[in-house]
């Protein structure tokens, strides 16, 4: 007889151990310092915004929207593995304690988010409501109860086989949340709200009862778990190289088609491979995100020095992130089989990173130009762009590649 609760404890233990191990790298990476600065900056702008915002502005809609999304969404972590489809499937009837533990675990995590969001919107809320604002603790408790009901509902929904059915249920849940929350944040704990909440609970119980008769959709749960694990690893991968990272492949036909333009010759084969990898992996979305952030930040800065420094920072961030391209297919079997020297792989990684950085420096130059004022930064930016792209990819990255 297998104790499923013990199995759950084992898995959560293994995961937490791994997460704590990685957290050391995240703390060391300087991200915390960055976050503290970002927090101070954001709080400053927040207080400025509060002063300017007229008290009559119906900001509760924003609060309702944010909370409705937070309460409705969120995936349940089950820590299921692919092999469970074979080994745990026969135990479905006895999996109760295991899945209950998953639900509780998920709720605890989500409760933290609810607390943080409430903390964040609290100044806005009191600013708008003034005297008639409810106090913090009852609001928090109330929201947490709704969150718990939502997590339980989410769990039952996941038994549904059809994606469209699951989406429809989640949509219904969202509407119910919006209804309850709108009354809560505009009028506080009034009778109408209590009735709405009561209805919400009745529906939730009905939900739970009817859906729990369906079998668990194991494949879907495993899929979700896989997605969440890979999201966790790609987050950690920003700070430290994670060996077993599994990435989602996006087709991105329009961008990966550009790679087809490379000449169809033997020495380009790895350029072709790594070009496609760059276009289809998370590296490309990261590249686009950083470029957009760069355009906004550099565009907003008025100072010439500031523009040049920001330009350099964005480029070096992109370079660092792109350097993970070298991890892809590093140990792939075929490199030993192809009649192509193994150094061709390194050359291709360097080339793809260089081209991507050059493209970004050209795009970011537009933001350097805005608003058009004659100054030395117009000359220095292209020098930084091309020079740094070259030095980073052909010198620093190449050295890294040769080391391993």
């Amino acid at each position, binding site marked *: 007889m297998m104790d499923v609760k013990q199995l759950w404890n084992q898995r959560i233990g293994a995961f937490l151990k791994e997460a704590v191990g990685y957290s050391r790298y995240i703390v060391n990476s300087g991200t915390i310092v960055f976050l503290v600065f970002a927090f101070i900056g954001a709080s400053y702008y927040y207080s400025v915004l509060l002063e300017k915002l007229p008290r009559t502005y119906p900001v509760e809609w924003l609060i309702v929207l944010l909370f409705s999304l937070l309460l409705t969404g969120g995936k349940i972590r089950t820590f299921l593995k692919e092999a469970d489809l074979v080994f745990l499937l026969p135990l479905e009837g006895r999996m109760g304690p295991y899945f209950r533990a998953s639900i509780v675990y998920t709720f605890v995590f989500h409760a933290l988010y609810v607390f943080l969001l409430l903390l964040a919107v609290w100044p806005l809320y009191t600013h708008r409501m003034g005297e008639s604002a409810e106090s913090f603790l009852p609001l928090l408790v109330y929201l947490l109860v709704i969150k718990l009901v939502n997590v339980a509902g989410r769990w039952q929904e996941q038994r549904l086989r059809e994606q469209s059915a699951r989406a429809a249920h989640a949509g219904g849940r969202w509407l119910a949340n919006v209804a309850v929350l709108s009354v809560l944040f505009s009028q506080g704990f009034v009778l109408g709200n209590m009735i709405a909440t009561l209805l919400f609970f009745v529906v939730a119980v009905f939900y739970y009862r009817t859906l729990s008769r369906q079998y668990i959709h194991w494949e879907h749960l495993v899929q979700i778990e896989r997605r969440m694990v890979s999201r966790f690893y790609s987050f950690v991968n920003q700070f430290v190289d994670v060996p077993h990272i599994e990435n989602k492949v996006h087709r991105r036909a329009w961008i990966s088609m550009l790679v087809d333009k490379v000449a*169809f010759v033997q020495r380009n*084969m790895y350029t072709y*491979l790594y070009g*496609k990898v760059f276009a289809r992996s998370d590296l490309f979305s990261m590249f686009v995100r950083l470029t957009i952030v760069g355009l906004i930040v550099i565009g907003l800065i008025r100072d010439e020095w500031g523009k040049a420094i920001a330009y350099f920072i964005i480029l070096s961030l992109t370079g660092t992130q792109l350097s993970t391209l070298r991890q892809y297919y590093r140990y792939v079997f075929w490199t030993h089989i192809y009649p192509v020297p193994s150094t061709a792989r390194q050359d291709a990684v360097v080339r793809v990173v260089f081209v991507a950085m050059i493209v970004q420096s050209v795009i970011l130059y537009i933001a350097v130009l805005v608003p058009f004022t004659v100054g030395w930064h117009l000359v220095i930016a292209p020098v930084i762009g091309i020079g740094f792209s070259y030095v980073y990819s052909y010198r620093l990255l190449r050295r890294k590649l040769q080391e391993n």
Partner: protein
Amino acid sequence: MEPILQVQGLTGGYRKKRPIIHDITFTVHPHEMVGLIGLNGAGKSTTIKHILGLLQASNGSVRIHNQTLQEMPEAYRASYTYVPESPLVYEDLTLWEHLELTAMAYGLDRKTFEERVGPLMEEFNMKDKRDLFPQHMSKGMRQKMMIMNAFLVQPSLYIIDEPFVGLDPIGIRSLLELMVKMKNTGAGILMSSHILSTVERYCDKFVVLHNGRIRAAGTITEIQQQAGMEGVPLDDVFYELTKDQSV
């Protein structure tokens, strides 16, 4: 005629001190299909890895066109293609892109690539699968993709490791027909498989491995003679040859 593949007194394995295969000697000539057979753990995969150049021999040598990997690494590698036992794919590339990548790796020009790829897609019934990612393929489709990659190049030697598992009956037939076609144009084929009836029917010569050593080798008649079982099908000969120590 000069052999394409020459394995001479090959002893080796993953660690120098503990060889898995001992004193393996056989050849593959042009127009020849050689079946490498043996039980699980007999040393088939290890032998193949040595031929591919993934492992270092502690004794003996492997030559393709009379050259070792050390002497001419690129020429050595360019002269064979390999179909692995289980598909090894790039998750980021579609079927079509795998084929393009292989063509580039082996230096095929665009024109040759396009001439060869059409019939292959047709033969393996993959024409409407060309933009599929491996994630969305079945095991059989991935296996077909591996086979198509290998046959696209048209090298002088094919090394094929247990290709039939997961293939549908039409796929198996297509593969066998292709092998015969390539053999007739002068290629050599080394194939490892457990499907003995197919091996017997298609291969010209056999190498029976047992516990890392050659137990018997040659044509079917020679093997039957070595086992003292003339006129008996390969299945039964194989059973006799490999049963002694398994008790």
